[in-house]
Structure formats: C-alpha cells, structure tokens
C-alpha cells in the first residue's frame, strides 16, 4: 500500500476507500454525509499532493479524520435524528450504541478493535497521543459494556 506506483487512484480507492469511509462513518456516529465529504476531500488532497506523500494509508486517514473532526466541531450532533436511520436495519443497533460514545471513543474503538490497528497507529491517524487513545478505549469499552452487555469485562 505504501509503494503504490503513481498513481492509479481507482485502485487506491478500491483498496482503502471503503475501509476509510467506514472508519469515518463510525467516528461521526453514522453521519454518511460527513464520511462522504471527508473521504472525498482526503482523496482530492492526495491527488493534488501525490508526489509529496510517502505513505498513503496513514496520510489519508489523518486528513480524513481531521476533516471529519472539523465538521463535527461545526455541527456536533445537530443532525442526529431519524433521517440517519436510513442505512440498513441491521446496523441500527450498533449505530445507536456508537452514538452513545464520544467521537474520540468511537474512532478509537473502531480503529483498534475492528480495523486491528495498534494503539500507536490509532493515535497517528487520529492525530492524538497514545495516552488519549488509551483513555478513549477504556471509556469506550466501559460504555459499550453498559449498552451491549457484559459478557467479557477484560481490558484487552
């Protein structure tokens, strides 16, 4: 992924676009428009700065997360509502649970537990410190335990 020749952005998009989009979608609490915009802007910037980017994966995640964070600061939760339940029924429960977490907790939980990124990488792509990521994970786990059940209380 880091040695892609320049540059077949169709292939790059197929390779990392959907995963990046889902990470932002989770981070934003299921706000499709923020995920679409953040991924579009990350790829637009990548196309523009292609020659300057050494490692596309972390670079694009950082740009997309920064873009989404700015959008969330502008309108933290004000479009959370029934219109956001337009996505498939089977993700409704997980979206409902994710929305009970803060954006930082959502991003950290998704990237670490779903995308299998080590904490250091999560910190890099979210533009924060490993200490903050660990706090997000701790509190996110606690919250999910309350929301989704308590069959495992370990802090893995």
């Amino acid at each position, binding site marked *: 992924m880091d040695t892609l020749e320049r540059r077949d*952005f169709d292939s790059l*998009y197929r390779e990392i*676009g*959907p995963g990046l*989009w*889902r990470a932002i*979608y*989770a981070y934003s609490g299921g706000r*499709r428009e923020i*995920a*679409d*915009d953040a*991924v*579009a*802007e*990350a*790829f*637009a910037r*990548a*196309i523009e700065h292609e020659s300057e980017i050494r490692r596309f994966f972390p670079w694009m995640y950082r740009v997309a997360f920064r873009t989404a964070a*700015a*959008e969330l*600061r*502008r*309108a*933290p*939760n*004000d479009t*959370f509502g029934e219109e956001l339940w337009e*996505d*498939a029924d*089977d*993700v409704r429960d*997980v979206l409902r*649970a994710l*929305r*009970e977490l*803060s*954006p*930082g907790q959502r991003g950290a939980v*998704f990237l670490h*537990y*779903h995308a299998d990124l080590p904490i250091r990488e999560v910190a890099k792509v979210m533009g924060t410190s*490993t*200490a903050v990521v*660990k*706090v997000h994970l*701790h*509190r996110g*786990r*606690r*919250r*999910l335990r*309350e*929301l*989704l*059940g308590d*069959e*495992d209380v370990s802090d*893995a």
Partner: protein
Amino acid sequence: MPERWLAQLDKLESLEPSADVLERARQGYRRPSPTPPSRGRLAAALVALLIAIAGGSGAFWAFRDRGPEPTAPPAVFHALWPEQDLTGAQDAQAKVDARDPTYAWRTDPARVAARFSKHVLGWARAIVTDQTNVDGNVVIDLISVPGPCEFPGCPAGEHRVTLTMARLLEQGEEGIWSVVGVDSGALLTLPLEVGQEITLSHAMVTVSTTLPEGTHVGVGWTIQFGCGNSGSMGGTTSVHQGSFKIVVESTTFGNGCGDDIQPSTYPLSGYVWAYTSDAPAPQNDPFEGSLDSLPSVGYVLELAAVPVTFLPVPDVSQSPK
C-alpha cells in the same frame, strides 16, 4: 473485546460510500470553509450571552465574583472541580507544597472523589466501586448509598457517577488531583471531548440518554472570564424521544470583567453541564457550591460535565460576500 461487540461492528462492513465520492475527489472537492472568527467586534461589547434550551424554561444568567482585578489573559485550563481556573489550582498546589494539612486530601484521588460526592452531589455516603489508572489519569466509579441524608425526601435508589481525574499541575506524588470529567454512564454522558472548542454562536449539543421520557434536566454552561469572575447560563429542559439539547449562543459578548475587554482574552475556559436532581426544575450550575456546604442544586441523581474551550462568535460582517 467481546466477540459479540466485534460482530456488531462487523455489520458496518455492509455499508458502502456514496457512489460519487471518488468522482468528487477527482474534481478537487473541498468542504466549504467555516467563517473565520473575528475578534474585532468583541472589544467594546458587553456581555449578552443567551442560552436556548430546546423545550426548556427558566434560563438564568449568574455571575460569580471570585477574585481580584484582571491581570493578564487567562490560560485555558480544563478542570471542573474543586478549582476551575489555573490561579485557583496553583493556590491549592502551593498549599500542598507547603504541607498544609487541610489540603492533604488533594493528593489522593479517592479522597477527592469522596469530597466531590458530598459537596457536589450531596450524597451523605458513597462507595468507590472501581478505580482505574489510565495513563496517568484516574477513573473512579462512585455509587451512592441509600439512607438518611441531609436533604428532605432523599431518593431511595442507588445512583452512579464516573469521575475522571487528572494531575494538571505537578505530576509527582505531591501533585493535586482535579476532576476533569463526570458522567453517569448510559443515563447521562455529554458527547464532548475535554477541551473541545465551542463557538458561542448557536453551538448545539444533542445528548442521547436513557433517562425516562419527560425527565427534567438542568442544563447549561459556565465560562471563566479570567478576572476572577465566572458566569453561568442555564435552565431546565426535558427528555424527549431519548435525547435533549443544549444550545449555546450569543449575540455580542465580552469577558464579564467590565469595560476593559481585550480581544486577546479569548479563547476562554469553561464547561458544559447537565444533571438531574431531587429538585423539580434543576437549572443552576451544579459546581457553584463551596467546600463548606452542601450543593445548592439539591441531591444530584445523575450528572455529566465536560470542560471545554469557548471561542468568540464569528463576525459575519467580515464574511466574503
């Protein structure tokens, strides 16, 4: 992480981006730029802060005069209790450093939590059910013990809060602990990060909650003006369809320190709060009490609060036409 939780997250794999995302990227997509904050019109304005509480009532605005004349622009300091400003915390740390025995409790997070439960929550007895160290911070779960208390008609049930504490000044064993976050789990948690920037211009916080429909919630925000004064704006709202809203907005505003208002005063520290209590219409800042008294807002049932950074309202007159 339990497999069942992972399976829930796996369901997101069924979702795809909108079909035009890459095409928009090829066309050089950029989000519209937010209006840049301008501090030009802040200089001579007097405080005129408003809070609009969806479905709420009884908004109030209250100043607290805590100290001397203004000296320098305040440092942004993100703490909830016992001190909410850097100067106050430095004073407390100095007392600890001088071995003042009346401040010894500040170096023990469990004792800070115990005092918090009495003076902020009004709980006569509380138990620490969990204490976790997370990279230098301490997360403490408190549960109230039902029984006689100092409020008439104390609720009989158990209540829980989670405190996040940090050493914001000295990091060693002599460093004082400050409460930097409070939530009541699934019942009440604010979707804000510590230090999150909130522009005082119709900033809306939607709080999802499992509190029962119609529950009265005291909501509001408090700003530290950096001259020893702080101001709170709050009111009562109700849970409607699993959520309630806090809207922070202003028309013009200054720093609450009189006419000596400088644009460089901003950003300012403060915090956003929401709570329920035994009072029928909670609306005052739950942190406004002192260490010598019981909370003025009554017996607190659930509480959530996050220290934030307030930014000035954008100057729309400077926006591009």
